[in-house]
Each structure stands twice: as C-alpha cells, then as structure tokens.
C-alpha cells in the first residue's frame, strides 16, 4: 500500500472509503473532487466530500478516521501527510430534489472508489449555477461534459423538473459550442 503522501486525491478517497466500508459506514464521493477525477485534474479541488449516505453517528466516523491518521479540525478531517481535507456532508445523496441512485465504482490501488456518475456530477455543478448563478460551477459542469459521456436528455429532464430549463439552455449552448460532448 502506498503511503498517504504519495496518494492522489482519488486514491485517498478510495483508501478512506474502503476503511469506512469495513466499519459499516457507506460514503460516496461527490462535490469538487469528482470534477477533478472526471476532468483528469483540469480542475483542482483540495476537498474530498464524502456524503454520509445513511447518516451515521459522527463519533463513529471520527473514531474510524482516527484509526487511519485523520483528525477532526473544524468539522473537517486532516492528515499530516496530505494537503487534501476530508469532509462528510450530511446525506441523503442527492442532486437538488432528486436522489442519486447510480453509483460508479472505480477500482484503484488503494481500494474501490464509490463516486457519483459524470451525469450526476454535471447536475451537482449545475445546481449551484442554477441556484446561485455561480459561473465557476457552470465552467466545471462544462469541463465534466467535455471529458465524459454524459446523458444530456436526463440532465434536461432534471433541469426542467427543478424549473431551470433556461439555465440548461445556456449550458447546452456552451456545451454545443465546444462540440466535444456526446448526446445519448
């Protein structure tokens, strides 16, 4: 097993997830780290957001994290050998009002990484763009769309259901101008 200071962000996430899985704690990677993974680090996020799917007691997570050298600091977990910080946002695992059901599993040297799909990652970023007009999130959604096969029909349906079809139109226009996304 690699030492933590030599692990990539995805490898750390897989390592932490595998350890927690052994303790009966199910977490799924979401947030900015997914953008990093799906864009081959075109976007860099130091955070590792692991969604606590079944709302496990905080103390149980804290104890398990301490076993692998992560200590809690201001609700984050830090390790002396890495700049990446781990956070456990509360569940449920969702994008807006919709629950996330499709989890992608990627086998890495440090364990199995459970991560939301590229399509849900785009929705997750678009949610921030729709609700707060956050242009950085739109740029990240476009990056993920450019580097991955995503289901634009599903994203359109989701956008429509949340009353954000106009925002989706802007995303789609910018997507098409890049001519790299593939519509399923």
């Amino acid at each position, binding site marked *: 097993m690699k030492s933590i200071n030599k692990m990539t962000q995805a490898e750390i996430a897989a390592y932490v997830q595998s350890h927690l899985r052994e303790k009966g704690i199910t977490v799924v990677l979401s947030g900015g780290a997914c953008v990093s993974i799906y864009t081959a680090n075109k976007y860099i996020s130091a955070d590792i957001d692991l969604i606590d799917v079944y709302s496990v007691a905080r103390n149980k997570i804290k104890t398990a994290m301490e076993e692998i050298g992560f200590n809690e600091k201001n*609700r984050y977990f830090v390790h002396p050998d890495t700049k990446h910080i781990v956070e456990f*946002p*509360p569940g*449920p695992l*969702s*994008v*807006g*009002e*919709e*629950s996330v059901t499709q989890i992608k599993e990627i086998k890495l040297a440090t364990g199995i990484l459970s991560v939301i799909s590229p399509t849900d990652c785009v929705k997750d970023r678009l*949610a*921030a763009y729709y*609700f*707060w007009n956050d242009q950085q999130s739109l740029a990240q959604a476009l990056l993920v769309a450019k580097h991955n096969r995503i289901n634009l029909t599903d994203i359109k349906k989701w956008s429509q259901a949340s009353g954000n079809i106009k925002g989706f139109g802007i995303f789609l226009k910018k997507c098409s101008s890049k001519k790299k996304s593939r519509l399923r």
Partner: protein
Amino acid sequence: MLEPLLGSKGSEKVLIFIVARDEGYAREISQFFDMDISTAQNQLDKLELGGILVSHTKGRTRIYTFNPRYPFLKELTQLLIKALSFYPENEREKLVMNRRRPRRRGKVL
C-alpha cells in the same frame, strides 16, 4: 408548535423566521423572539451543518438562507408556512410585514 418534530423551540423559531423573511442573521432572530443570541447562533450552525441552511457574509454579518440544494426543501417550507399560519396574528404580521423596500440613507421620515 413544531418543537416535538424539530427537537427544540430555538430550531423552530429560526426556521420560521427564515421562511417568513427569506433570510436572517443571529442577532435579528434573537432580538425578534427575545431569545439568547448564542441560542440562535447555535441553531443556525446546526441547521447549516445539516445542509438545511447556507450562509454568506455581508460586511461583518453572516446571513443565513435556505439551502436550495436541500432535497426536502419544498416539503419543509410547506410545513413551516403552514405552521406560521397558526402563529398569533400580531407575531405573524411582525414577521412578514417588515419593510423590505430600500430607504435612502439620511432620509427623514
């Protein structure tokens, strides 16, 4: 009213305030309900950690709003709006009928 469900009166007051006014900060919520500011702040912190609220700063004030990404937001706000309708009329009016339009600085009323 919703205390048995939400776990505390403080939590209910904070949520009722925000559903009525769309946003709020610890000092104004505590002053409105005549509660301790630390109680209001603790509830705001708890609700933010739970993903129900989000916050941003304006000057030196941390302002809290509902998290639009919270998956049960629609259902929660419906419940709170209904609860608000059961509040005493004078309290409900004070919550809802606050001045929101701009007022020029130094304007004499």
